[in-house]
């Protein structure tokens, strides 16, 4: 699933079956290749921006229909959250960034983050808007540097651009093997 599919999902307690918030946006760490947390909106009559945040460590699971937490105490004020969650740097948003290879070829722009299914936020690839038009997917970890406007990836990434999410699953394993990662 992708980061944009998480936006708007209810945050539900495993302990009580209550929807205590909903996801406003994801907080992504490009350096670590994972979600570090999510920002929240209130539910119901009080709908609107919530001050509280949900650190990834407190996420029980991210599913198709809900983000599960143990109980309401998983939602914390920004000052009680890890700094990267409570006060995320704005340049961490990679959506719209150019993807440049080390050789200087642009592969397109980042359109969305692809999450490992069943994880609590591991990002395994990016959905991209390709230069020539159309959608594609590239595996992560790939980028060597992130600036806020562009990210630089190894040249071989170009060989791993996939047409669909199904292809990405296999590409991630092969890509990581080639990169000498796990």
């Amino acid at each position, binding site marked *: 699933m992708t980061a944009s599919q998480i936006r708007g*999902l*209810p945050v*539900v*307690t*495993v*302990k*009580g*079956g*209550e*929807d205590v918030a909903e996801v406003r946006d994801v907080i992504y760490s490009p350096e670590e290749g994972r979600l570090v947390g999510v920002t929240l909106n209130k539910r119901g009559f009080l709908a609107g921006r919530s001050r509280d945040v949900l650190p990834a460590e407190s996420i*029980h*699971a*991210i*599913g*198709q*229909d*809900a*983000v*599960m937490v143990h109980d309401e105490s998983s939602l914390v004020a920004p000052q009680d959250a890890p700094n990267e969650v409570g006060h995320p740097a704005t340049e961490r948003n990679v959506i719209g960034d150019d993807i440049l290879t080390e050789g200087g070829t642009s592969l397109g722009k980042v359109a969305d983050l692809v999450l490992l299914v*069943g994880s609590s936020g591991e990002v395994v690839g990016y959905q991209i808007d390709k230069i020539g038009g159309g959608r594609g997917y590239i595996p992560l970890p790939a980028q060597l540097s992130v600036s806020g406007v562009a990210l630089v990836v190894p040249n071989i990434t170009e060989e791993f651009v996939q047409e669909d999410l199904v292809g990405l699953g296999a590409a991630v394993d092969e890509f990581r093997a080639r990169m000498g990662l796990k």
Partner: protein
Amino acid sequence: MSETFRGSMGRKVVSRSSAKELGSVSHLLADSQQRRIAAIVIGQGKKAQLADWAQLSGFGPDAVMVVGEDALRPPADDRERAAAGGDLDLVGKRALSERGNELGKIDDVTFDADTGALEDLLVGDRRISAGTLLSSGSYAAVLEEPPEPSP
């Protein structure tokens, strides 16, 4: 004997001590941790009252017998007020796995009329053991993953 939540709705509630009819079953409040019925709700709206399961002398096919009229009490806390309003009804509630995936709506729940123990949750064409129930609230009933469908 096995009973169903749906089948129990509207069943008359009678006092064992006075033989008076006190009303009818409007909701059942389940204790998801204990996986049993905690109380029955009699009547609707502001006049709704509860009777704890321990105050029943029998959950029969024709009537639910309470030991006496003084077994009926008003809701004691927010959870019981929500139950009296029907917000916690298991029937009609979305069933959510603890991994955050929706399994469908709960169509009905079976229970042991002798003990009040929940037996199975009927979700679509699946029959899921109530033993997988982790919690239930106003939004969802949360089930263990993976839910084991019974044959």
